[in-house]
C-alpha cells in the first residue's frame, strides 16, 4: 500500500478504534460492577464536550505540552504503521510522556505536581520493558525496524512468550489502571483528584484524551506484533491483553509507587531479561 495512503488511513481509523475500545472498557467495567454503564460512544462524547468548553489555562505551556503529547503519540503510531525504527519510536513516545509530565509540573498545584512526580516513576516502571521487547526483536532479526518483524516467517510469541505478560502490564501502567494507577486513575478520581491531569481542562484535556486513543492502538499494535503471521490471532492476542488489564483494574486495589517500581524492576524486568537470555543462548535463529 502507498505509505501516504496508509498513514492517512491510520490517522483516521486509529482514534475511532481507540475510542471504541475505551468505550467498551467503560461498558465492561460497569457490567463487572453490576451497572448498566455508559454508551459505547461515550469517549467520543467526552472529547467533543471538552472541545466545546471555555479555554482555561494556568499558563501558556500547558497547551503546548498537551498538543506535543498528541503529536508525538500520532507520530509514534505512524512510525509503527510505516515500519520505521522501533527504538526511535520509543524515544518519540517517551518524549511525549515527558512533555505531559512537564505540563503537569508547570502548574503549582500540589495534585498536579505530585501526579507528575509519580508519572515519572510510572515511566521508570514501563520504559525498560518496552526497550527490552525491542531488544528481543533485534536479537531475532538483527534489525530495530518494525518491517523486519513482518519479514519473519514465524510468530515472535514462540520465542518471546514473557513479553505477552510484560506488554499487558505496560498497557495497564500506560492506561493508569489498577493496581498501577499511582499518578492518576483512568476512570475515577483518587486521593490526587485526577493526578497529572488535574490542571488540564477543556481543549487541552480533549487533546490528551485523543492522544490516549492513538497510544492505546499503538500499545495493542505491539501485542499484535507477537503473532504477525496471522492477523486474526494477533488481534485476538491484543484484545486478550486489553481485557486482562480491564479485569485486573476491577479486581485489584491501587498499590503504592514503591511497590510498582520494585515489582516491575524485579519480576517484570527479571522475566524479560531471562527470556532475552534464553533467546540469545538457545533459540538464536541462524540469520
Amino acid at each position, binding site marked *: 500500500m502507498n505509505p501516504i495512503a496508509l498513514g492517512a488511513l491510520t490517522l483516521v481509523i486509529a482514534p475511532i478504534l481507540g475510542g471504541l475500545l475505551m468505550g467498551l472498557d467503560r461498558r465492561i467495567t460497569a457490567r463487572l460492577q453490576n451497572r448498566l*454503564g*455508559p454508551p459505547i460512544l461515550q469517549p467520543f462524547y467526552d472529547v*467533543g*464536550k471538552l472541545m466545546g468548553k*471555555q479555554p*482555561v489555562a494556568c499558563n501558556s505551556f500547558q497547551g503546548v505540552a498537551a498538543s506535543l503529547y498528541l503529536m508525538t503519540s500520532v507520530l509514534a503510531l505512524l512510525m509503527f504503521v510505516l515500519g520505521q525504527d522501533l527504538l526511535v519510536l520509543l524515544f518519540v513516545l517517551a518524549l511525549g510522556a515527558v512533555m505531559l509530565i512537564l505540563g503537569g509540573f508547570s502548574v503549582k498545584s500540589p495534585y498536579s505536581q505530585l501526579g507528575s512526580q509519580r508519572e515519572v516513576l510510572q515511566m521508570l516502571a514501563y520504559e525498560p520493558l518496552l526497550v527490552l521487547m525491542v531488544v528481543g526483536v533485534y536479537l531475532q532479526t538483527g534489525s530495530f525496524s518494525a518491517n523486519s518483524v513482518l519479514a519473519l516467517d514465524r510468530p515472535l510469541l514462540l520465542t518471546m512468550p514473557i513479553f505477552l505478560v510484560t506488554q499487558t502490564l505496560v498497557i495497564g501502567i500506560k492506561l493508569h489502571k489498577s493496581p498501577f494507577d499511582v499518578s492518576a486513575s483512568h476512570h*475515577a478520581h483518587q486521593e490526587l483528584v485526577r493526578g497529572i491531569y488535574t490542571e488540564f481542562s477543556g481543549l487541552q484535556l480533549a487533546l490528551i484524551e485523543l492522544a490516549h486513543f492513538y497510544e492505546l492502538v499503538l500499545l495493542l499494535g505491539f501485542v499484535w506484533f507477537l503473532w504477525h503471521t496471522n492477523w486474526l490471532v494477533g488481534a485476538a492476542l491484543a484484545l486478550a491483553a486489553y481485557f486482562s488489564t480491564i479485569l485486573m483494574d476491577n479486581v485489584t486495589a491501587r498499590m503504592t509507587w514503591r511497590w510498582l517500581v520494585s515489582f516491575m524492576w524485579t519480576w517484570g524486568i527479571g522475566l524479560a531479561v531471562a527470556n532475552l537470555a534464553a533467546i540469545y543462548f538457545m533459540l538464536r535463529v541462524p540469520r
Partner: protein
Amino acid sequence: MGILGKARAKSPWILHFDAGACNGCDIEVIACLTPVYDVERFGMMNIGNPKHADILLVTGTCNLRNARVLKNLYAQMPEPKAVVAIGACALSGGVFHECYNVLGGVEGIIPVDVWVPGCAPKPEAIIEGAVMAVQRMQERASGKVQPSEDESEDEHA
C-alpha cells in the same frame, strides 16, 4: 443542536460540594453512583475537580467560612456550567437556618439553576435535577440564558 451540543448533553461531569450538610443529602448524591441508580449510563461522572466539571451539585448550608470556597470552586469551572442546589439546607438553610453562622442557602453566593427540594431528596429527584441542569447548560451555551438571569421553566421537555 449540533455535534458539540449533543456531546455536551451526553457527557456532563459532576462536581459535588458539601457546604455544610448533615450528610443526609451527600449519602443520597453518592447513592446516584451506585449500581441501583448508575448515573454513568447518562455519561455523568463524579469527578472531584472543578476544572473538569460541568455541573456543580451543592448540598448543605452556606456559612461565613465555606462561602468563599464555594465561590472559588464555581469560578474555577469553565463555561458552560450549571449549579444544582440539593436539599432544604442548600435551598434556604433548612433546619440550620437560624444558626448564628449560617448565611442561608446557596442562592446569593453563586447563581443556582436548578433547585431540588427535600430533606433529603431521593436519588431519583437528584438525577432529574442534574438532567434539568444539563438542559440549562445547553441553553446557556447557545446564548439563550445569561448566567444570572431568571426565567420560567417552560423550555424543558
